[in-house]
């Protein structure tokens, strides 16, 4: 009995140990230096209390980055799920099982592509002079279309690439989930003359509520790590129109200033905010 009780500890200890080294040590160090004024070029630093945190709230780039990050999160998560559900249902309804498998294979290709490669491919595709994606517009109107240089369209254009990668992948998952559902509720609804929209809105999707929520959480976490895509396609520009919090923190820490304490204070705030937000959403969902 005693042996049985100690088994979880035996399995958990190495994992927790590794996690402590890999996650807790850097986190604790980030918190520690966020209260200092350290810069890369000056390894000596002194404690400045909450000065870095106070400075953040009068920093227009930080305020802007919060807005951009929230917009990015809402747009990419919302659009990915919308495309995934829409496309998944369309494939389930209109395509033969053999064709579905072939399309599912094709839909997996974008997410297999490394993010940086995908970003470079799309950046070139959106080039106003040579890009294949902007060519039809140029051919029809005679005017070049510069989506990545326009502050009004740059974030949406990058988000399109993110949704292209993840929306198609999630559509395959939704399709496979629909295939696992029992057919009886659908047949019963059709006998009661329910329309296709009603069948999915009131029967299929409620049955898939739990896996769809899981998908939403996965995408929310993934969207927080969109640094590579945005960095390659716009570098946070034009101006600061696509500068997310992680990009601004990296910029302050390594590209522009070398202000690692200031960058750490941003990282700590992001960690606190995401922990609170995810806990709140998780509890609400449960």
């Amino acid at each position: 009995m005693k042996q049985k009780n100690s088994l979880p500890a035996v399995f958990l200890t190495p994992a927790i140990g590794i996690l402590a080294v890999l996650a807790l040590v850097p986190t604790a160090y980030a918190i520690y230096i966020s209260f200092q004024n350290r810069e890369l070029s000056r390894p000596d630093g002194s404690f400045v209390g909450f000065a870095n945190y106070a400075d953040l709230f009068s920093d227009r780039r930080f305020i802007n980055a919060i807005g951009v990050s929230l917009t990015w999160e809402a747009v990419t998560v919302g659009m990915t799920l919308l495309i995934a559900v829409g496309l998944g249902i369309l494939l389930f309804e209109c395509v033969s099982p053999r064709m579905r498998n072939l399309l599912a294979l094709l839909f997996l290709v974008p997410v297999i592509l490394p993010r940086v490669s995908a970003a470079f491919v799309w950046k070139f595709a959106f080039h106003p002079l040579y890009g294949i994606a902007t060519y039809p517009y140029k051919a029809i109107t005679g005017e070049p279309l510069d989506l990545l240089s326009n502050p009004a369209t740059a974030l949406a254009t990058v988000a399109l690439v993110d949704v292209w990668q993840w929306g198609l992948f999630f559509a395959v998952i939704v399709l496979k989930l629909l295939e696992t559902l029992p057919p009886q509720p659908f047949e019963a609804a059709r006998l009661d003359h329910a329309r296709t929209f009603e069948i999915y809105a009131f029967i299929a999707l409620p049955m898939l509520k739990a896996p769809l929520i899981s998908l939403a959480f996965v995408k929310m976490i993934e969207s927080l790590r969109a640094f590579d895509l945005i960095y390659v396609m716009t570098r946070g520009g034009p101006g600061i129109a696509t500068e997310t919090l992680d990009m601004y923190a990296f910029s302050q820490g390594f590209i522009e200033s070398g202000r690692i304490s200031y960058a750490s204070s941003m990282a700590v705030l992001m960690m606190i905010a995401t922990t609170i937000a995810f806990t709140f959403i998780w509890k609400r969902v449960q």
Partner: protein
Amino acid sequence: MTKAKTLVSSIAFACLLSTGLTTLAVAAECSGTIKVLAQPRDGLTLLEDYKSEFEKLSGGASFEIDYLNENDRRAKTKADASTIGKYNVYYIDEANVALFASAGWVAPLMDYYPAEYDYADFDPGRQKVATYDGKVWFAPITGGGDLMVYRKDLLEAAGIAPPKTLDEYIAAVKKLNQPDQGIYGTALRGQRGSGANVWRWMPLFKGFGGNWFDGKTPVFDGEQAVKATETYLELFKYSAPGSQTGGWDEAVGAFTSGQVAMLIESTPLVGMAIDPKSSKVAGKVGYLPPPAPLTGGGYGHGLAIGTKANKDEASKACAGLFIAWATSKENETRRLEANQFSELNRTSIMTAPKFAELYGPDLGQALADTGKVTAVNFWQSPQWPDLGDRWGIILEELITGTRTDIKEGLDELDGFAKDLVARSQ
């Protein structure tokens, strides 16, 4: 007499032995792999074909070069040099030499640069930007100033003489801009960065008489900066699409693909524009010094000795030997033979008969003429990348229209500069 002979022989033998031991010691120290962090350059790629030559020279050492594009290279070198110090040799440039030198991330080059490799042979302008606080920190791998590069066919068809003044240049750009025929007046750099949009804006600012600092007091927030910005934004109306958030690659790509009439860019553009392998307009290209009163943006990139990865003197000497060999006359001659114009830095190479044979006497003259107006346009301080990058963001906002008030942008930069100076003290 015999005793004297024995004494002389003994001293000579001792000297020989000690020299041999020293050589052996260096050879033994140079037996590892010298790690280099650089940005892609044809000259460095060419070096990789001669690895065995360096192995023989160094007594067994090899080298490995990791490449990152300019902005990423700057970020990575800064991160590496200030933390783990994995690289023995860093590729640094005029904009961050002050930061690397003052932070102690690189060692004074001349302490470890073998004299026989003749550092004094490098172009004096490049030597100047490699020097900070009275010491030389890198050996140039590329550099130069600016040239106005134009399409002779388009200017002739429009009846325009190559502009000599900025007013003539602006008028020509406006006249030559014909988007409906796929030709744009010019191509500028809009991408944020002290080495991107700010680099092309600075010749206007300095040309109009602007200055960055007076001692530790910022003095740039004045009418010269406003006028320079207005002129830059005016020219952007005629700049090729994609350049609003593009850098060197986009501007040069637009010109060499035949979509731009004229532009002012760093001198390596000429080598690319006249080479049929990289240019659709080779044979139609003319070049002159930038129109007055613009100053040319003097720049230089090169290789420096990292201090963290080279913990002892022998390692530093080894890195110094690699840098000397990589930038030697022999390797520059190879670059000349491979038609790598932008990789040439030595006076002896640029005045060689082979150079004139390859590029004609006009280019040599244009380079000599532009040398007279080439200047250090940026603020030579460790804080420059920080200040320059901040102005780059504001300038990109002005270019793309998310900000319209130039003075307000300059005032914001002025506040940032004061804070920057206060933090550095």
